[in-house]
Each structure stands twice: as structure tokens, then as C-alpha cells.
């Protein structure tokens, strides 16, 4: 019960901070939309409607834009010793990871919700699959992204050049998630389901279990100085 209470308190605090700063939603959403413009301007005429272009553009923009907010997940806690304040809370320290990860997922979900319609509109594509299937695929991808991003943000916050190194360290870790996102999105667009790419769906679920479970167990050591 105390873990849930602490998780709720930290998410509440992060939402209040986001309301004041716009670092985790507004900036990544604007960046994703700018990336959309760059991609559209960079593509030769007529290519935009070809198979695979929407998928590649969408995930490139969401993954790159997402790092802007994710990198701040723990970097923000480093200033003024705020991380000490969180670690002094009378709960298992894993609650801090859980809360920061869930808050990061919420922010990524809002960014996706705001930017995805623009991508579908610009590339002139219809959903091709029921909305709930899109919700499951995008939700699982963003959950995996949030878990890996939060863990690495906690590690990077302990390093001198952590914020610079963050994307360089993060993307190799995300390769399986990016591959799963692309395969499953293509499957949704072309077949209306993920059955054809079941192996990627299983991989994505496994990745989530691993990247939420292991950091939850070892977080105490991750933040130890």
C-alpha cells in the first residue's frame, strides 16, 4: 500500500512539474511534428504513400522526440539534491523507478496521441485495424521504451556527461523494441492484425517483463553512489 501511495505521489508531482515546464510533453510533441515536416520535405514526390514509409517515419520521429523528455526523467531529480529527497521516502526504493517509469509512459502516450493523427493525415493512410489493436501495439512499444529509458536515465544521472551519452547508450538497447514496433505497425496497416507477426508481439511482451522487472529489483543499487 505504501508503495502505491509513493508511486501516486511521485506521478502527481511529475504531472505538476510538467504543467509548469512542458519539458516532457510539449517539447517532444513539437519536435516530433518538426521531424514529420523534415521527413516530408526530404522524401521524393510520390514516395510518401508507399508501403513502409509511414511506419519508418512515425517511429523515427516518436523515438527521437521521446528521448528529449526521457533524458530529463532523472536529470531533473539531480538538481538541488531532489533524488536524495526521493530516496529518503519511507518506501522500497524500487517505488521511485516504478513511478518515474509510469510517468514517462504517460508523457510518451500523450505525445503519441497528439502526433500520430498528424502522421496518418500527412501520409494519407487510414488506420487499417481497430483502434484497440493500435492501442495495444503502441502502448506496449511505449511501455518498453519508457522502462528502458527510465532505467538508463537513472544511470546517466550518476555520470558526468550523462545527458550527452544518454541517446548513444539508449538506442542500442532499444533495437528489439524498434524492430517490433516496425513489424507490428506494418502488420496492422496491411492485415489489420498482428497475428502474422506474433513472434514480435511475444518479444515485445518479454522485453516489457524484463525491463520493468529487473530494474524494479535492482534499482536500489542503480542509484547507490
Amino acid at each position, binding site marked *: 500500500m*505504501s508503495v502505491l*501511495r*509513493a508511486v*501516486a*505521489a*511521485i506521478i*502527481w*508531482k511529475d504531472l*505538476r*512539474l510538467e504543467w*509548469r*515546464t512542458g519539458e516532457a510533453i510539449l517539447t517532444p510533441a513539437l519536435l516530433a511534428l518538426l521531424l514529420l515536416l523534415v521527413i516530408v520535405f526530404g522524401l521524393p514526390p510520390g514516395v510518401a504513400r508507399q508501403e513502409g514509409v509511414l511506419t519508418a517515419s512515425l517511429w523515427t520521429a516518436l523515438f527521437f522526440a521521446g528521448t528529449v523528455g526521457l533524458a530529463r526523467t532523472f536529470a531533473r531529480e539531480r538538481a*538541488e*539534491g*531532489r533524488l*536524495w*529527497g*526521493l*530516496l*529518503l*521516502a*519511507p*518506501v*522500497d526504493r524500487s517505488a521511485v523507478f516504478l513511478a518515474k517509469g509510469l510517468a514517462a509512459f504517460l508523457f510518451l502516450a500523450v505525445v503519441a496521441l497528439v502526433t500520430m493523427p498528424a502522421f496518418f493525415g500527412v501520409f494519407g493512410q487510414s488506420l487499417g485495424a481497430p483502434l484497440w489493436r493500435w492501442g495495444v501495439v503502441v502502448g506496449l512499444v511505449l511501455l518498453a521504451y519508457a522502462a528502458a529509458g527510465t532505467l538508463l536515465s537513472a544511470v546517466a544521472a550518476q555520470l558526468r556527461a550523462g545527458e550527452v551519452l544518454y541517446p548513444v547508450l539508449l538506442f542500442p538497447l532499444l533495437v528489439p523494441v524498434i524492430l517490433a514496433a516496425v513489424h507490428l505497425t506494418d502488420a496492422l496497416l496491411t492485415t489489420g492484425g498482428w497475428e502474422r507477426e506474433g513472434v514480435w508481439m511475444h518479444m515485445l511482451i518479454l522485453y516489457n517483463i524484463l525491463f520493468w522487472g529487473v530494474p524494479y529489483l535492482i534499482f536500489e543499487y542503480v542509484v*547507490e*553512489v
Partner: protein
Amino acid sequence: MRIELRSATRRVDGRRLLDAITLAIDPGQALLICGPNGAGKSTLLKALAGLVPLTGGEVLYDGKPASKWGPALRRRIGALFHESLLYDELSVVDNLLFAARLFGLPQPQGRVRAMIDAAGLRLVAREPAGRLSRGMKQRLALARALLHDPDVLLLDEPFAGLDARWAAWLADRLAAERRRGASVVVVAHEWRLAWPLADRAAVLVRGRLERLLDAAAWDVDRFGAEYRQLLMPAGSVEAGAALSHAEVAGAASMGAALPGEGGGP
């Protein structure tokens, strides 16, 4: 809550930040820790709070190693460090509400309101913490540390930035906390302000506990002279700077150095 350090040692890259420190603080007692910059005072406070691990020795609370307490111990600790632990973008109320919820206090709104009144922050309650003056921000950081009625108070430079009125408020507040049974550890460069509160005083130099003495048996000026004697042989610029900073007000009244080996004159 009784706090005990047994040969507490912390080494980082071969440097001894804390060097086999042994001392104890009984419930309701206050310990003043002073020493020059880099003496290990802040590291000692963070080790007591369980925020930095020791590489040797141990910290015990009520006779039980801190490592065996788990999260329940943190519920009983209130801490103020050099860093404010505050979110500059959040208002005074939100900063305290967050702390109250994190500690699971019942009726957090009422508790926060009472603490805001006590710390004289009512007029700026809706202001972001980043817009407060130095003294107000220090009062907010103190309010955060005191919010959950901790049994152990670990305070790093609690008087920094406070004017005379609020320094007196803090002294009264800490006296009340001690009467309630809280153990208080105060790190202070401006040790003269904290001296009246202290039962005992410890002098750290380069991570070593050079003196641990009974404050009641020492006159403040005599302690000043002893302190000067302890720091000057180190011969560092840092030691001289610490002395001139902390003792400028009382330098004229300092008498001859007193002999003394820990525990009294």
C-alpha cells in the same frame, strides 16, 4: 532514537572521507559537528541518512544496524542538506504536499497548512519555490525536514540564510524537537549559532574525529580557542578560511588555547 556510529569509514578512490568515526547520540540529545571545508561533515550526515554507503564500520539506530531497518527507518529521519531537496518550479504548498504524501502523512493538507504558518510562509504559499528569497527557501527546506515529526534530525547548515528572528525561531523549534525526544545532529560552519543547542560538539578534520566534547562543560570562547588550535596545525588555506569565516565575530574575545583530550576541558 539512539544513533551510534562504530568505526564509520568511507573511502572513495583511495581518499578517506570518513576515517573510523565512533560516537553515539542519545534520544533528545543534540550533537554539533564542525570542521573546515572537506572535513567530511556533509558526508557524515548523508551516511547517517543512509544515502551514501560506508566502506567500513556501521551505523546503528536503537542498537540495530541501519541496513537492517529498511524503509521504516527513513520514516523517522528528517534531513536538510546543502541542497534544498526542493522543486523550484513547484509552489511552496506543492513542495510540502508532495513531501507529506511521499511520507504518507494523514491529512496532508492540514499538516502542510500548519507548517506553512509555523515557518512564516503563508504570504508566499502559492509562489514557486524558485522565486523565494534565500532565507524563505531555507525555511521551506526546514519545513520539509520537520513536516513528519521525525525522531532523528540531520541538519546541514540549518541557520544559513536565516535572519536573527528566524534563527531564533529555529533554535526554539529544535529545542522543542529535543524535548519531544528527537535526536538532532547539526553541521554548522557558523557553529556559534548552534552552540547553545548542543549537548556535545564534534570536530572533524580530514574525515577524522579530532575532538568529541561535552558542550555544557565548555565556554563558547574556550571552545573557539580549542577549535582554532585544532585547525591551524593543518596549515591549509582552507583551515584558515574556515576560521576567519566562523570566528570573525568572536575572535577578539578568544583566550589562550586550552589543553583537552576529547570529553571536556
